């Protein structure tokens, strides 16, 4: 469909009583007279518009009395049948749950990291102490060896 007709289409199909609003602006009418493609497509649009308008319900259509009570009964039934799991689908609840979970993960992570650092520091400290004690042991041994050597030399 070409621009002049396209621009006037919704105005043309506006008639709420099933009729279409003619005449269209002169330049559109001129175009329609000359363009078979636009004419054919306009006919299809008209036909669909008529079919769509057949979906109008007769005027004054009202439900039976007590409709509100029946709606509330339906709501109560829906409330009763909703499971605990449906709470997880509530956006606010889900957001809060996600926030709490994220906080917990951060807390546990922080705890683990700090505990590991403390362990490493302790391990480093005990390693140095062990090395020192080994050094002390080595010195004593050397001294003992020296005394024994002297004794052997003396007895000889």
């Amino acid at each position, binding site marked *: *469909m070409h*621009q002049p007709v*396209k621009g006037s289409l919704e105005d043309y199909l506006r008639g709420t009583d099933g009729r279409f609003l003619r005449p269209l602006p002169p330049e*559109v009418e001129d175009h329609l007279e000359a363009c078979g493609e636009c004419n054919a497509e306009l006919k299809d649009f008209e036909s669909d518009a008529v*079919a769509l308008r057949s*979906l109008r*319900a007769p005027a004054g259509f009202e439900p039976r009395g007590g409709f509100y009570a029946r709606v509330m009964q*339906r709501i109560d039934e829906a409330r009763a049948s909703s499971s605990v799991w449906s709470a997880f689908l509530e956006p606010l609840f889900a957001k809060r749950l996600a926030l709490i979970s994220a906080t917990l993960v951060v807390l546990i992570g922080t705890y683990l990291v700090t505990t590991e650092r403390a362990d490493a520091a302790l391990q480093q400290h005990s390693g140095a102490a062990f090395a020192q004690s080994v050094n002390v042991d080595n010195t004593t041994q050397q001294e003992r060896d020296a005394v024994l050597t002297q004794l052997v030399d003396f007895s000889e």
Partner: protein
Amino acid sequence: MDGLTGVLPFPAASGSQTRTRTRVDHRTTEEAALVRRVQARDELAFREIVERYQAKVFSIIFGILRNHNDAEDIAQQVFAKIYFSIKNFDFRSSLLTWIYKITVNECYDYLRKKRVRKLVYESDFSEEDALRMENSETVVDQGQPMDAQLARRDLVVKLLAKLSEEDRMLLLLKEVEGHSVEELSRMTGMNENTIKVKLFRARQKLIKAAQRINRGTGQVGA
């Protein structure tokens, strides 16, 4: 049909007053105050909504399904849905547009479930029975229907199912409810040019869907 719809704006028809922006703030209307009361769990406000829109909802459902019992059942479902989801209503469109969308979607959900139930029911038949039923339906579709208007109505309901929720709603609001483009713009918060483009595309999709169905059943013409 050209492919320029998405690029070129719709030219304003001479003589018509096409305003590209007809924004309405749906947060400050009297309707919005009512919605806020329902959001605050005011049951009286909800009752007001039911009473205000029940006739509208019924007529939309009855227009599509033409069955009183189904209309009552689906209308109850629509208002229950409104009750539970009104806390998510964001005032981007009018309350009526939102209710209209829920109602039409419920109708199409119902039709879809009904079709699935029918398929399950038919699967209980023997192959021969199923074939006979299928042929009898084809005869009704292809031959001269008893009531041409009813057949056309059923076809358009079927065709609308092929459109997106938004396209379907816009076409129904325009053709069934008789709203103008300007009114649709106010109701949906979209500008008039966008509405015109969307309506044009929706109408084209409807025609294409009809052509596909006709090709499938071997008929000629829309």
